[in-house]
């Protein structure tokens, strides 16, 4: 996967913006309602200005008492309430749109991410994926809930207001008509360069923040090396350098804001002075003049608010870039086309691997023409150098991927015809590095059998050696594990994984990936005893990256470059001068 493009990067922009537009289409209805409610505020503003100018006109020229002005006074009150209601309504609609979008996005993106497949996901730094899924969606949410309605406001309100000025005073109308559209125009002219600059600045700020947090995260290593203070100085220097550079950019970037402010302010000033003189010359009524003056700032206000939300848009674009990349993940190679067969499995099925072939998209062959048999009630060990195809074979057996050619026959029935959930229900799997789920020890174990009772849990814990781990944990079975709980060491994890396998008593097949890797000699021997016992009623496949684990097997299969290069009983193989012997020698 490519590193995510920084905001301001040339690649980002069009596709991300397009993606956001496409997403917006999914919630067109509530977004339109939000835009309509926002735009409805404009007539209300006109009404307010009209009534207020009437009241003030009466006060100035007729010194009218309040008793004569109650009607416009209450009119103003009603319009204030109406605007309040409209603003809440608009925001609610936009929020509704954003949230329904967020929910469907989350589900959709999770599915796309899972398309990477179990092993692809592990390779990806999934911390980064999570950041994209959670923070990215939040950033996009802000865009729909706040930025888009403001865009609608900036597009709809000023024209309505300018048009309504014309009947009162066409000269002011002309001034406003000329200055207001100039603002976006000038902003585009002064802004395109400035926007790029400010996007770059934003990216740099993010990078600076990242290197600060990185230094903080690696503080232990820095202290070990005695480099913490030096890095602190470096960070300070970088910050200073960045500040000088940024300020140079900002002086230009803020020019677009200056243009906006200048036009908005000068527009009001020109209108006020022009109106003043024409009032004196008697060319205009005070009422019309006040009306225009009251509306003038409202014309520029939506545009200014939009400028303030620019960061929301930039955040959303950066997020959209990453989210759309997530959607582009192709389905895993040979995505499993599952069958429907749910025939019951024999107590210890014989598994025949027939001329199995599997190729990875991005690296060399995984397996080719690989054939062997896992015999019932036997422990078969799979050995071979890294890349020989051991993990690939395990993946295919678990149905995480489908073979390109050849078959896996379970007591003669092709695995491809099986309902995978049904097949997996009969399998117990001990991976090399188990994932710990957020939850208690009990919940983590019950993944293998949600209905398991206390007795079954205890038995599994005792036989796997997890009981010793539990004794150490502050709350025993109820100890919270995972990110926010207690961490387990590699050896403890393996015991947990083994306990899971033991808990699933109905399992007919055990697939073990280096189950003793993190254990000391004593622990490893205990686990081997459990495996031997399990094999009495099951079919057991043991992948051994370290050869020492292979000696407990009844049969050893040596893989090399995706095919079987030797097989036999471990002691015989060790005595012969073949591949297994060579591997043993190399390990010494």
């Amino acid at each position, binding site marked *: 996967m490519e590193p995510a493009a920084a905001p301001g990067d040339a690649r980002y922009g069009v596709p991300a913006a397009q993606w956001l537009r496409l997403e917006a289409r999914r919630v067109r209805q509530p977004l339109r309602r939000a835009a309509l409610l926002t735009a409805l505020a404009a007539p209300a503003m006109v009404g*307010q200005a009209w009534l207020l100018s009437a*009241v*003030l006109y009466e*006060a*100035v*020229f007729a*010194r009218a008492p309040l008793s004569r002005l109650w009607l416009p006074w209450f009119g103003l*009150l009603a*319009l204030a*309430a109406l*605007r309040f209601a409209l603003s*809440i309504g608009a*925001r*609610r609609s936009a929020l509704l749109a954003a949230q329904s979008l967020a929910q469907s996005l*989350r589900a959709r993106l999770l599915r796309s991410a*899972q398309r990477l*497949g*179990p092993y692809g996901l592990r390779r990806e730094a999934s911390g980064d994926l*999570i950041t994209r*899924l*959670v923070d990215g969606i939040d950033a996009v949410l802000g865009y729909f809930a706040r930025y888009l309605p403001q865009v609608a406001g900036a597009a709809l309100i000023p024209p309505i207001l300018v048009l309504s000025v014309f009947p009162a005073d066409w000269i002011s109308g002309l001034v406003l008509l000329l200055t207001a559209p100039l603002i976006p125009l000038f902003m585009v002219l002064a802004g395109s360069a400035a926007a790029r600059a400010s996007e770059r600045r934003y990216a740099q700020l993010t990078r600076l923040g990242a*290197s*600060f947090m*990185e230094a903080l*995260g690696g*503080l*232990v290593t820095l*202290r070990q*090396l*005695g480099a913490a*203070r030096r*890095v*602190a100085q470096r960070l*300070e220097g970088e*910050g200073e350098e*960045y*500040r000088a550079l940024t*300020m140079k950019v*900002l002086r230009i970037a803020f020019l677009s*804001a*200056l243009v906006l*402010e200048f036009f908005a*302010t000068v527009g009001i000033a020109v209108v*006020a*002075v022009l109106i*003043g*003189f024409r009032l004196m010359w*008697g060319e205009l009524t005070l009422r019309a003049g006040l009306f225009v003056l*009251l509306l003038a*700032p409202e014309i520029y206000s939506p545009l200014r608010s939009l400028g303030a939300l620019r960061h929301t848009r930039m955040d959303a674009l950066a997020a959209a870039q990453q989210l759309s990349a997530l959607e582009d993940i192709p389905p895993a190679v040979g995505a499993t086309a599952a069958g429907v067969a749910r025939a019951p499995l024999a107590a210890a099925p014989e598994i025949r691997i027939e001329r199995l072939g599997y190729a990875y998209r991005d690296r060399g062959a995984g397996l080719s023409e690989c054939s062997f048999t896992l015999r019932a009630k036997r422990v078969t060990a799979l050995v071979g150098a890294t890349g020989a195809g051991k993990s690939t074979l395990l993946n295919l057996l678990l149905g*995480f991927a489908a073979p390109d050619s050849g078959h896996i026959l379970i007591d003669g029935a092709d695995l491809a015809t099986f309902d995978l959930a049904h097949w997996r229900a009969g399998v117990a799997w001990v991976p090399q590095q188990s*994932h710990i789920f*957020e939850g208690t020890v009990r919940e983590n174990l019950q993944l293998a059998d949600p209905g398991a009772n206390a007795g079954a849990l205890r038995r599994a814990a005792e036989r796997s050696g997890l009981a010793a781990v539990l004794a150490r944990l502050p709350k025993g079975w109820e100890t919270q594990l995972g990110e926010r709980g207690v961490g387990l060491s*590699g*050896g403890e994890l393996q015991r947990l994984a083994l306990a899971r396998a033991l808990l699933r008593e109905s399992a007919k097949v055990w697939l073990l990936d280096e189950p003793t890797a*993190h*254990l*000391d000699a004593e622990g490893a021997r205990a686990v081997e005893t459990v495996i031997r016992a399990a094999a009495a009623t099951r079919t057991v496949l043991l992948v051994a990256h370290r050869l020492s684990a292979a000696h407990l097997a009844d049969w050893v299969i040596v893989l090399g470059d995706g095919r079987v290069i030797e097989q036999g009983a471990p002691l015989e193989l060790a005595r012969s001068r073949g591949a297994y012997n060579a591997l043993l020698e*190399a*390990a010494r």
Partner: protein
Amino acid sequence: MHKPLLPPVVRRLLTVLRPYRAWMAGGAALALLAALAAIGLMALSGWFIAAMALAGAAGAAIDYFTPAAAIRAFAILRSGGRYAERLVTHEATLRGLAGLRSWLFQRLIPLAPARLSALRSGELFARLRADIDALEHFYLAVLVPAAVALVSVAAGLLVALIVLPAAAVPLLLGALSAGVLLPAWMQRRAAHDAAQAVREAAELRGSLLDALRGHAELLAWGGVEAQAARIDALATRLDARRTRTERLQAVTAGAAGLCGQLTLLAVLVPGLAAVHRGALTPTLLVMVSLLVLSVFEVIAPLSEALPQWHATLVAGTRVFELADTPPAFLEPEICAPLPPAPAIVFERACLRYAEDAPWALDGVDLTLSPGARVAVVGASGAGKSSLLAALLKFHPLQKGRVLFGGQPLEALQGDTLRRHIAVIAQHTVLFNLSLRDNLVLGAPDADAAQIERAVTLARLDRFVASLPDGYDTLLGEGGGLVSGGEARRICIARALLQDAPVLVLDEPTEGLDTRTARELYVELEVAARNRTVLLITHRLSGLAHLVEEVVVMHAGRIAARVPVSDYLARERAA
């Protein structure tokens, strides 16, 4: 004792930002200038056109030059002031941000790792990041709008008191409601949801992480749908909370506008009466009306500032609490002298991580004379890592002591001590610096020839040649662009450059596949040459050639110390 105006957290933050107070005050002053100019522009314009209309109707003469010039001046002050304000406030923000980060970093250095649990948990670390973020936004998002609103309202009140005293009360009430009372009410209403939302967001993050990282387990054991349902339920709950909060915010934001209109209507009542009585010049009523409306333009941003203010308080409390944590060690003023080849002695060393935790080291006696090559083996939890933490002066002992070069660790400065100990570990971190900078982290004075030599010895030369920018290539965040084996080699070269008399190897080949691990054995041997070697591992296989003796640890105690050949023989027999 009177109650201080500002909460201690804010005063503390302002103290840290003190060196930048000129910039900060300047930015706030410019913001105020621009805001006052905007208010003045509207108020004066209103008065001006009313006065001109009256003069025109009466055929009277009027000095229009002065107000017209003032209107132009206000216009220029406002647009120019806004530009200057933005420049200066950003300058202040950037300076403050750099200052805050550097201050915090300096404070956190002595806390790692014993007192900095945030470094071990992704979630705590993310929270620290968000907290720092909140503190960095304090000036722009809270301080400036609050100061501007406060002074603007005061100025508005002053004008009202002079022109139409009866208008002061509604103005004050309206401003208080829109700027303080309503946001505070919202804050209180939303507080529960906000706290819950933080917790649930973390939970959602965790569940998503489980769904992705644990996807294989979920597939194998059959829990994909259950996990998806859990995520959906969590997200729905979280979204509902956020909706409630956002709705409250919408009400508060809308209410600021409503308050402005209501205040205007309330001002009109005595204003119209005063004009009718002849107690108030009508043109001034126009001015006051427009003044009220434009003052509320300045108050409106406060509805966003108050939540930020609370975020600052919460974040600041946590950050300062962390920054004020006393370090695990008080470093001595001067460092005791060290011999060129120091011995390491643990004397009845006892260590535990919490009062109620079991002993991680339970009376360890261990001597490593200069040049000794010792492996410490044992299952996880046997105390191997604690041994290292004690030696590096990262964790204090509760009982017993450690001598390094004949000196108790208390007499040595941690940095000096650690300069004498090079570490090659599974968890050594690479930084997004250039390769060269990563290599010389522990030896900043190393010259090109020394670097070249270390790289050759660590067999990194071909890797360096393959890099697009050679030594200047950036390694990516967390060294992400480097493979596991190369990362370990970089650590070896780093240790070689540090040239310390003691070398600690902490699971040096863990996490690497067998082939890569085997390829490292030679380089590790090179690194170990002529040094005291302490190898920490749960399994000796493959690394036995690096040591002469093996210490077996069990439950925080030393179970045996035997020559490596005896240990291997015993292993083989078992």
